[in-house]
């Protein structure tokens, strides 16, 4: 299916919760979703027999530097061989996005990484710990206003 | 040899001390040479050169430098280790390996202790090492070491059985447990050796003995007690310096021990393969050592060829392959001996 058809199908199902397909080459065409409906949309995309997005290629946390954090989902279907990009934006003050870990297990580590580096809180994730930074690291390094701490456990950080 | 020495000294203790020192004079240089050989053989099998620097010709002094380094090293004992056991373990392991040399017939004229149950003694004493390995693993207070020790105990005890049965095959033919006597029975051309008697049963017993002796010395493919990629270094992970060197020495000593037992039991020991040609007590030492070294080489060769078995597969090989087949051999040889004479 082309992205347009997928978008139409999604629009028919979820209505206002999702935006229209946005196309601006060279960008990949993408659909924005309301953050609270992420899990529903994901479950639909995964289970709908016409869509069958069974392969979550990539899940990236973003800091848009406009007070919003975001998550970008790059989906692929092994059976139907089509792609889709989803975007979610949440305010930095309350960066809560439902976890899709139960839909694509691969999201487990991706979400932990996005939590660790960007600071997005994935609601419903079974084990939301830091994954790349030390467990007691403070702050989320990929946020645009992140300041590197001077000391970590008594050690000077910018060596 | 005992008589010869007695003509020099009149004191028993001195005579026995001299006799006891002789194997040590062989074990130490042999271990250094075997380590060097292991490294060179490994290197050349892998298209490398190996140690080339120390001592000039092909790095022959490398292992001497290594042992000097090990002697100088600090002896580190983990804080929470059981200090006494940690100290005792390498000694027990080394004693177990070294004591067995006493009954090895190096030549028709020399055997450390002429006991008439030589084979039995060697089997019994070399199992002492198990205690040392378990002590080492337990005393280190390291979970990986403990794993190594547990594996090694399980392994050595299970492989004792096929080893003993394979030895029994020879004992049935020879009718004695005296190694010197067994050697004497194989005098003559190489077809007099036991390995070619009652073909193929003794030959199979020989293979079984060799394979299980690999396991007893913790060599690849049965090196799971010290499996480097799994257990880091197994029971000797927490050992440094001279204590580590003792483990090392014991391992290489054991390698020679089992090779020597194999050659004594199956391949004529100190007998020349060519009848009277190059035979006699002095040549006997040569034949004995070179047969032993050949099997040491085969052990090294196997180590750099094969992957390692898993614990359960190791047990499988012992209990389901080697033990039944050694029973078959023993029975067949027994019947043959009784019926065929």
């Amino acid at each position, binding site marked *: 299916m082309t992205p347009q058809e997928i978008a139409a199908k999604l629009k028919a199902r979820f209505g206002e919760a999702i935006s229209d397909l946005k196309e601006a080459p060279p960008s990949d065409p993408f659909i924005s979703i309301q953050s609270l409906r992420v899990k529903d949309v994901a479950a639909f995309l995964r289970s709908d027999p016409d869509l069958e997005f069974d392969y979550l290629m990539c899940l990236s946390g973003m800091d848009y530097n406009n007070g919003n954090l975001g998550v970008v989902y790059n989906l692929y279907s092994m059976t139907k061989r089509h792609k889709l990009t989803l975007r979610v934006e949440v305010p930095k003050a309350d960066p809560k996005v439902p976890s899709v870990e139960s839909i694509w297990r691969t999201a487990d580590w991706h979400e932990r990484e996005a939590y660790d580096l960007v600071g997005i809180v994935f609601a419903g994730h079974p084990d939301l710990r830091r994954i790349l930074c030390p467990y007691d690291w403070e702050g989320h390094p990929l946020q645009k206003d992140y300041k590197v701490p001077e000391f970590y456990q008594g050690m000077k950080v910018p060596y | 040899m005992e008589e010869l020495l007695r003509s020099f000294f009149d004191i028993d203790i001195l005579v026995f001390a001299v006799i006891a020192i002789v194997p040590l004079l062989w074990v130490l240089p042999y271990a250094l040479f075997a380590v060097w050989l292991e490294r060179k053989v490994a290197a050349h*099998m892998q298209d490398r050169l190996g140690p080339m620097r120390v001592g000039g010709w092909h790095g022959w002094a490398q292992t001497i430098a290594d042992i000097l380094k090990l002697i100088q090293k600090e002896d580190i004992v983990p804080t929470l280790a059981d200090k006494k056991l940690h100290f005792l373990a390498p000694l027990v392991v080394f004693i177990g390996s070294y004591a067995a040399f006493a009954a090895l017939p190096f030549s028709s004229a020399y055997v450390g202790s002429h006991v008439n149950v030589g084979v039995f003694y060697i089997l019994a004493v070399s199992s002492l090492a198990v205690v040392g390995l378990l002590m080492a693993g337990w005393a280190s207070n390291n979970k990986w070491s403990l794993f190594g020790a547990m594996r090694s105990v399980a392994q050595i005890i299970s492989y004792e059985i096929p080893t003993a049965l394979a030895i029994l095959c020879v004992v049935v033919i020879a009718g004695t447990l005296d190694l010197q006597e067994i050697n004497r029975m194989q005098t003559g051309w190489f077809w007099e050796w036991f390995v070619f008697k009652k073909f193929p049963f003794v030959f199979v017993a020989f293979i079984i003995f060799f394979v299980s002796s690999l396991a007893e010395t913790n060599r690849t493919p049965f090196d799971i007690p010290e499996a480097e990629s799994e257990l880091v270094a197994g029971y000797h992970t927490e050992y440094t310096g001279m204590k580590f060197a003792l483990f090392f020495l014991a391992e290489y000593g054991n390698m020679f021990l089992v090779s020597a037992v194999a050659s004594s039991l199956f391949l004529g020991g100190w007998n020349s393969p060519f009848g009277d040609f190059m035979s006699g007590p002095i040549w006997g030492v040569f034949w004995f050592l070179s047969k032993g070294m050949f099997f040491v080489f085969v052990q090294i060769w196997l180590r750099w060829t094969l992957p390692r078995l898993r614990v359960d597969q190791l047990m499988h090989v012992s209990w389901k392959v080697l033990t039944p087949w050694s029973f078959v051999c023993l029975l067949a040889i027994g019947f043959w001996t009784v019926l065929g004479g």
Partner: protein
Amino acid sequence: MAKYFKDIFTSIWTVLVGMKITFLHLFTPAVTIQYPDVKPKLPERARNRLYVNIDDCIGCDQCSNACPVDCIEIETVKSLPTDDLGTTSTGQKKRLWVTKFDIDIAKCCYCGLCVPPCPTECIKMTEVYEFSEYDRYNLIYNFSALTAEQVGEVRAKQAAYEKEQAAKKAAAVKPAPAAQPRPQQQSPGSKKS
């Protein structure tokens, strides 16, 4: 049961096959070399230690900008119109005193990104790969041809010239802001230790 015997047979057979291979390799010549005694010939394009031909450097700072790890530090002082710094071998006229050209080779990642931007091809990667040091500060290479005194001299001259120019300007127009003084940091020689 057939599997049992087949397994024993394949085990013995594959072990023998393996032993044959390793045994034959025992007699093949080694592929390794005795390194410090025998050295491999590096290809022409080998990327190792950086070298700067400071005579050709015009102080354009392009290599420093291209460096992803910021291991090149360049400081320059404008020459006076009366000074003649000569030309590079490519025929470009030099206009800047290169008072500092430090490469911290310990930081260098040998990516080679600094080489193509150089307009006079004076920075290049050489074949030298043995340059370990006991002291990390010895790995900061000073390429500047000027000594500490010369740098001071050049700076003083430049400052005096700027002052003069500023005074001229002030005289010509009105009070103008004083010429911005060059930061008098430590001279490049001081890091040499």
